[in-house]
């Protein structure tokens, strides 16, 4: 991430190596009856074509809200983006008109949602919903759109696509519905896919099928993929790099291999340590004490300090910046050196 920060998109754009998507210092807040909930507090990340970025975090960490801001589907109000930039191919999407953004949404950036049953319209056939992509964005006729829909369903390996194109979402199983979601996202061959917990609602054997399909299509079409998840296992399987979020900030970013070997933030370390391991059988699991913070009252200083085993006075007063640990890694901890060593 730090590398991306050093070089702005204008400069890198000239050399043709601009990241596909770059989020810079993004802030999102929600105005609620009880006060202002600061859901995202200065997030930076970037994704290149063909790359998989995993955004890891617990509920309320701001991982989904960031994605919704990128997609432009935040409810505003109550949501508000007081600050930040989201560059897609060097263009700040937050400065675009609604019309320009709509052209990007679906065609250039597509999203896969967690719960396919509630993301699909229950009273329209899946063929109609898949075909809608082509009718609206490419102006195809109903007949052509239907043919395209069948082609797509074949591509995501839904058996007997021709017969099933007229079926409704409830007639498909959970795994098949998620394939339809993937098909819909892939329909216009976007450059970037944001998958928000795409397999959380699925069983493990089906999860394996869906993740493999997603990875295969990504390779084929050389897309960027942002995978939002809380599952450390899924991340280890597919990600190239990871951004760990906590209380609306990125606390650590690193290539996938390095972070599992040696985390540089106590929160990441805590998450990794709380995975049950073979040699710990019968012993207590390591548990991060306390609870994730209330977004209406984020602790001062480092948001993780009340739960952190390493917290010192400085952690309660100063917000640690996301500082470079190496060329490819960054950690937002005053004591990242100590964390990395121990």
């Amino acid at each position, binding site marked *: 991430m730090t590398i991306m920060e050093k070089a702005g998109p204008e400069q890198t754009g000239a050399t043709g190596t601009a990241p596909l998507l770059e989020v810079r210092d993004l802030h999102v807040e929600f105005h609620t009856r009880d006060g202002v909930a600061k859901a995202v507090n200065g997030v930076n990340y970037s994704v290149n074509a063909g790359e998989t970025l995993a955004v890891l975090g617990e509920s309320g960490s701001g991982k989904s809200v960031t994605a919704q801001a990128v997609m432009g589907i935040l409810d505003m109000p109550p949501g508000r983006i007081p600050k930040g930039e989201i560059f897609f191919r060097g263009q700040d999407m937050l400065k675009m008109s609604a019309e320009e953004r709509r052209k990007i949404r679906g065609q250039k950036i597509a999203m896969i949602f967690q719960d396919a049953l509630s993301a699909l319209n229950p009273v329209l056939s899946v063929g109609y919903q898949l075909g809608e992509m082509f009718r609206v964005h490419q102006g195809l006729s109903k007949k052509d759109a239907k043919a395209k829909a069948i082609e797509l369903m074949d591509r995501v390996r839904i058996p007997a696509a021709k017969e099933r194109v007229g079926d409704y979402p409830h007639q498909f*199983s959970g795994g098949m519905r998620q394939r339809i979601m993937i098909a819909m996202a892939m329909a216009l061959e976007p450059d970037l896919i944001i998958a928000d917990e795409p397999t959380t609602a699925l069983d493990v054997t089906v999860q394996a*099928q869906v993740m493999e399909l997603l990875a295969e299509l990504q390779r084929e079409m050389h897309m960027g993929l942002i995978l939002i998840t809380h599952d450390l296992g899924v991340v280890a399987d597919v990600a190239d790099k990871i951004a760990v979020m906590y209380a609306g900030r990125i606390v650590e970013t690193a290539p996938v291999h390095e972070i599992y070997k040696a985390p540089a933030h106590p929160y990441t370390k805590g998450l990794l340590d709380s995975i049950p391991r073979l040699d710990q059988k019968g012993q207590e699991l390591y*548990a991060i004490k306390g609870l994730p913070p209330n977004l209406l009252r984020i602790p001062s200083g480092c948001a993780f300090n009340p739960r952190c085993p390493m917290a010192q006075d400085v952690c309660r007063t100063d917000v640690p910046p996301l500082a470079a640990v190496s060329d490819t890694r960054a950690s937002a901890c005053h004591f990242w050196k100590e964390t990395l060593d121990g």
Partner: protein
Amino acid sequence: MAEAILEVRDLVKHFPLTQGIIVKKQIGAVKAVDGVSFDLYRGETLGIVGESGCGKSTVAKLLMNLERATSGQVLYKGEDITRLSGKALKAVRRNIQMVFQDPYTSLNPRMTVGDIIGEPFEIHPEVAPKGDRRRKVQDLLDVVGLNPEYINRYPHQFSGGQRQRIGIARGLALNPEIIICDEPVSALDVSVQAQVINLMGRLQKEFDLSYMFIAHDLSIVRHISDRVGVMYLGKMVEIGDDEQIYEHPTHPYTQALLSAVPVPDPESREHRERIILTGDVPSPANPPSGCRFRTRCWKAQDKCATETPLLAIPERFKNVDSPAAHESACHFAEEKDVVGAA
């Protein structure tokens, strides 16, 4: 370990499928649980794993007699629970309690925590005399790690992890011998899961509890369980101690399940052989003949369609001193190296 506190024998639950509004005609049955047998020993944790729809939650309800079994027996200290009703059933239920999956819907939002945890005493007044109840509830709150002063708060004032602690306190109120936990941590954040698992481990030692732990997270089940049973489509397909199941599985479904679990170690992703099953779980209303897994099994032969394999130690492993010698319902049971959930 030797004493079986609960013996389940050939348990069957069929939910009738009916047609017609006025005159209901039975046209079939969903065979949710179809002949399941196992023992639960005193002081042990028996993990039950399987995908959604395999019948694991129905088994839990049958053990509590929340659902009436179609046939079969559940023997608690030699007494068949499935035939009990009224007073006798109430007496047995005092000793078998349940902790539910969703701490948001399993607690009445209009009752205070004190009323929720104290409600079992209303039903079984012999456990705690009226004047003593408030103190007992506060003791229970303390036992599960909540502040006893929270007794007058409402469920919405607590986080998910704290609510699950309330659910556990309610389960403990009557000093039961057996606690049936149906996905007790799957609704919780990763960092909070470990806290609840540790609490359950501590309580088991303190109160000499027997757990039946139903979950789909294989690594957590392994951590907490002494023995593990694997279910598929209403049948128990394999059962054994944790090492036998995780290190030496002989049933192809168990092998596929274990290989599908994402391992939180990016180093393993290149050289890990994964068994990706094709298709979905068949409908329990119309399960395949013979072995129910045969439609997705790579080893299936004609014999599998005609002969239902029994859950027993396979012939080839009989009189062999190997961890592979445990009960497995497959005609072609054999060991296969799978890098499973650690």
